[in-house]
């Protein structure tokens, strides 16, 4: 028994040991080599794929500001509330119920919705609600802490876009989609500039999504977006929108209205609007109440599909920046360009004369002047200026024919009407026109007064600006400056002169001719006392669309040194009671009347205007508001409009009453309530200036009678209406003055 191991046993031991080493350990070492060295990188990558989680840190989107720094669009931090269904499934039933109840209450979500998300238990990440704002987000955080469900519920920060002015410059600003990407307008065009670069935190997470206790964490800081400073002036934009909104209502504009205010010297867009538009804070909601109502009424099942289409169309329509995206036939406004060409090429001069018998024969066909329809006679003999003032079509057909196809086409192209304006907005449409080779005498004749081709509003105002600014075709632009997140200037946009289209001289001549259109012609309602305004009306029938029209007016001021131009274009206004061609002019007048003083351009009154002390009030009741305002403005009176209607229901003072210099006419578009009446102050015994002050402060108009207020000793002796009477604002209070203490001292004595 005590024998030592035999030789054979030892041999077999060596074989067994060798076998284990050769077959066993070598095999596993080989496997390790394969896995760690040969496939190591691949396996490590797969491992990291499951271990690494990258959390996005949203970059704050830059602001959009007006030229004076007013914020038109900004971003604020919001949170996304997310759930890990896998972790939630590990909570006990009580906590799960508390989770569903609590979150549905705080976030206003359906309980079923949360429960459904929670059932995706293979998932670690489901978004419950995005764009949760501060107070609610804090509530969620608190709720999560209280219930100890931090594993299951977590928050991710992101940003949300705010437009503080609501539906203001909406088609220009555009909006961002739910992923914070610019979808329309400037938000889209400058998306890269505004968006910045989101950051990321890459960290290692265990299989429950909890960060591993290791230093392996890479943070890439987000780079916030840059800020756009626009050429838009919030105040001018406001003037434009206010007037455009009213215009849409008063003329029942069927296919939206466009307004643009441009700095004619630089091409900067001071204001641009399309109405009706939308609220970029809630871009999918239909903003126009009529359209919204019509959509709401489509509530049957059969209409569901139609409704869906109609809704999509309505959304698309309200987002569309008509000013740059919809080419139209400009009609007579285009006569500015034809005139500029004729004068520049010298095919006609201001002294050229034209005879209009009410029609003209072109290529064997009679074309009537617009004036024929109402008068059955023509404009007769007229010089160039008069032809422009009359907007005489036969005269302009002649002018066009004098130019000829080649020069006309060259002129057309020189004014930038065959190319885009390259404005920094998305969706600029191309113009549609006959090329020189396709243009015959008929096409030329019609094109001369703005028919047979289509251009966009922005092309038209850019061309008109070139015609009046001394001949420089500017590239219109809307972003003036780009600032980095710290407010440092990254880029300044300088005006770009595309080319000199006409000479300084031609431009000056044309300005004076266009001034006559406003002074004596179809543009009268754009007059503003104290300012020299030039402009041109335009009417174009929409061919093949019944009696639908596009009415427009392009005005600029001051004529001697043009600063701004304003184009108003109404697509499909209701013309049953308006004298068609002129309805856009008073709107332009209203915008210019607000804008010119705002820009610091002082009015320069004529001697006659300065000497006038009283004005006889004109009759404006029942007129459209813009028409009425224009008449009052042209009469040299200040006015205040009360109410939000589009028709004048009452005027104070009444027609024929004398309004003193500096007095204010109150135009009512709604009947006034008793609470708006004012009491007449007692001015007996007061001097003229004191009485005037008291009455004006009360919102009434002051008129003196008797011996007047000239003598320094004169004081008020009586007044009408009597003190304490309740009258409508704007009522004229006539005060009788007598000299030397008068009745006052008598009463006291």
């Amino acid at each position, binding site marked *: 028994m005590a024998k*030592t191991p035999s030789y054979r*046993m030892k041999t077999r031991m060596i074989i067994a040991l060798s076998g284990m080493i050769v077959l066993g350990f070598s*095999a596993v070492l080989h*496997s*390790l080599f394969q896995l760690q060295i040969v496939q190591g990188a691949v396996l490590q990558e797969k*491992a990291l794929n499951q271990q690494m989680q990258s959390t996005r840190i949203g970059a704050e989107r830059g602001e959009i500001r007006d030229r004076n720094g007013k914020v038109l669009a900004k971003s604020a931090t919001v949170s996304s509330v997310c759930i890990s269904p896998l972790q939630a499934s590990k909570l006990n039933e009580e906590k799960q119920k508390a989770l569903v109840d609590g979150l549905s209450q705080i976030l206003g979500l359906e309980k079923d919705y949360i429960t459904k998300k929670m059932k995706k238990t293979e998932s670690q990440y489901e978004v419950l609600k995005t764009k949760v704002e501060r107070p609610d987000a804090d509530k969620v955080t608190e709720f999560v802490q209280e219930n100890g469900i931090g594993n299951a519920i977590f928050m991710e920060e992101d940003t949300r876009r705010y437009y503080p002015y609501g539906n203001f410059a909406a088609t220009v600003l555009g909006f961002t989609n739910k992923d914070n990407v610019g979808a329309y307008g400037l938000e889209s065009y400058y998306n890269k500039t505004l968006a910045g670069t989101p950051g990321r935190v890459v960290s290692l997470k265990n299989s*429950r999504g909890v960060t*591993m206790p290791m230093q392996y964490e890479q943070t890439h800081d987000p780079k916030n977006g840059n800020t756009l400073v626009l050429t838009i002036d919030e105040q001018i934009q406001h003037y434009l929108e206010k007037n455009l909104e009213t215009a849409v209502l008063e003329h029942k504009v069927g296919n939206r209205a466009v307004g643009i205010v441009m700095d004619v010297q630089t091409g900067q867009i001071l204001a641009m609007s399309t109405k009706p538009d939308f609220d970029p804070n809630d871009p999918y909601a239909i903003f126009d109440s009529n359209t919204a109502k019509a959509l709401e009424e489509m509530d049957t099942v059969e209409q569901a599909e139609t409704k869906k289409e109609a809704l999509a169309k309505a959304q698309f329509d309200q987002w569309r920046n008509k000013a740059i995206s919809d080419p139209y036939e400009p009609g007579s406004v285009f006569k500015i360009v034809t005139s500029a060409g004729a004068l520049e090429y010298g095919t006609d001069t201001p002294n050229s004369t034209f005879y209009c018998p009410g029609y003209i024969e072109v290529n064997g066909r009679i074309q009537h002047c617009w004036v024929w329809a109402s008068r059955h006679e023509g404009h007769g003999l007229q010089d160039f200026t008069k032809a422009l003032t009359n907007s005489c079509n036969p005269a302009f057909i002649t002018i066009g024919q004098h130019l000829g196809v080649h020069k006309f086409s060259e002129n057309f192209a020189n004014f930038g009407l065959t190319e885009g304006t390259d404005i920094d907005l998305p969706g600029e449409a191309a113009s549609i026109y006959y090329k020189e080779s396709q243009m015959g005498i008929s096409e030329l004749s019609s094109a001369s007064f703005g028919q047979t081709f289509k251009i966009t509003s922005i092309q038209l105002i850019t061309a008109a600006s070139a015609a009046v600014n001394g001949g420089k075709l500017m590239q219109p632009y809307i972003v003036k400056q780009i600032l980095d997140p710290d407010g440092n200037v990254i880029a300044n946009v300088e005006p770009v002169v595309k080319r000199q289209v006409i000479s300084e001289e031609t431009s000056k001549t044309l300005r004076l001719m266009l001034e006559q259109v406003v002074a004596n012609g179809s543009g009268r309602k754009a007059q503003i006392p104290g300012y020299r305004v030039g402009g041109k009306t335009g009417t174009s029938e929409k061919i093949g669309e019944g009696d639908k029209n596009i009415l427009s007016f392009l005005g600029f001021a001051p004529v001697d040194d043009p600063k701004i131009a304003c184009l108003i274009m109404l697509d499909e206004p209701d013309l049953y009671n308006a004298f068609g061609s002129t309805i856009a002019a008073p709107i332009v007048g209203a915008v210019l009347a607000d804008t010119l003083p705002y820009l610091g351009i002082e009015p320069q009154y004529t001697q006659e205007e300065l000497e006038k002390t009283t004005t006889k009030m004109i009759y404006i009741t029942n007129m459209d508001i813009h028409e009425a305002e224009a008449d009052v403005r042209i009469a040299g009176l200040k006015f205040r409009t009360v109410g939000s209607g589009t028709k004048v229901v009452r005027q104070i003072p009444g027609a024929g009453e004398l309004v003193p210099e500096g007095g204010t006419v109150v135009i009512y578009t709604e009947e006034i309530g008793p609470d708006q009446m004012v009491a007449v102050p007692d001015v007996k015994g007061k001097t003229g200036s004191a009485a005037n002050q008291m009455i004006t402060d009360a919102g009434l108009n002051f008129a003196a009678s008797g011996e007047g207020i000239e003598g320094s000793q004169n004081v008020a002796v009586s007044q009408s209406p009597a003190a304490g009477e309740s009258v409508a604002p704007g009522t004229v209070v006539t005060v009788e003055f007598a000299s030397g203490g008068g009745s006052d001292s008598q009463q006291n004595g």
Partner: protein
Amino acid sequence: MDYVQPKSLAQGRVASKKRVVEKGGIDLTFLILVLLLLAIGLIMLFSASYAYAYYHENGNSFYYISRQLMFAIVGVPVMLIIAGIDYHILHRFALLAYIGSVFLLILVLFVHTREDFNRWLPLGPFSFQPSELAKLAIVILFAHLISINHDKMKDPKYGVWPFLVLMGVVAMLMLLEPHLSGTILIVAIGIVMMFVGGTDLKWFMVGGILLVGGIVVMVMIPNVVSYAASRIEHWQHPELDPLGAGYQTLQSLYAIGSGGLMGLGIGNSRQKHLYLPEPQNDFIFSVVCEELGFVGATIIILIFVLLIWRGYVIAMRCRDRFGSMLTVGLITQVGVQTILNIAVVTNTIPNTGISLPFFSYGGTALLLLLAQMGVILSVSRQTSIEKE
């Protein structure tokens, strides 16, 4: 007589005049290798287990390491005490240990801690696998039989049938648990011991032919073909079922691959953060590979190889066949178990639950392992070196 007989060798006999039986000293090399593996094993267990423990043991990251350490602290003195005892007393326990093991293997079928596998017997606050004891019992009994019948091993009556019956009973009981990996291990140890013990080589050939034949017959059964094919497919391509059967293997491969040449550094495994299921247990070596890289894993494997080599040296130098066969059995167990474990984590063979000696969590298993190392150390004290 030119040798000095140690006092403790009551039953010792002189083998040869040319041999010198050295007294006393245990094999220091072997002891150092054991302690080295134990130390590395404990460190790696802590590294591999703390994240898992944090989540599964109520935030107690030290749950596994503290228990394992306790057993190690008890286990090392136990090992040294056993090293001081003459291993020949095991002759007396050979049959008893076997019968006891069989009894416990039957008992565990009825009394066990888990429902899915009937492997663990409750033992106070701990649990205990009777199969661990059965392994030891088989080794002792086989060593006993071989040392008694060493001259008749070529006769199948002595060299084959007793072993097959003894092994068969244990293997059958373990398959009932079921505990396939343990069965394979015991059979492997048994075969190596029979081989070294002197069983005629032709029986191994017969066994090999029977095994191949058995597999062929199995494969001929229609349903088995597709089942086997599917099993092999899933073994070769764990990514086919990444969240199910392939999950553990795939996560293990990710861990091993992530280690690359130099590893992520000790403590820096990522896969142990709840990706790898039970990283403190059978898959601890994946974490070792991830943290220490190919270099570290190779060094650890080399230490295992050295230990086994040293064990065989002790077996060869042993002055009697009982001690020699005991050592062969016990050290082969460590070797085969290590190979199978690493083969599983590297997906070299299909996944079967088998732990890594000195590394895997398991207090009673560690205690038993250290006791076995103690037996080898005891054997090492009675070597005979040939001196011409």
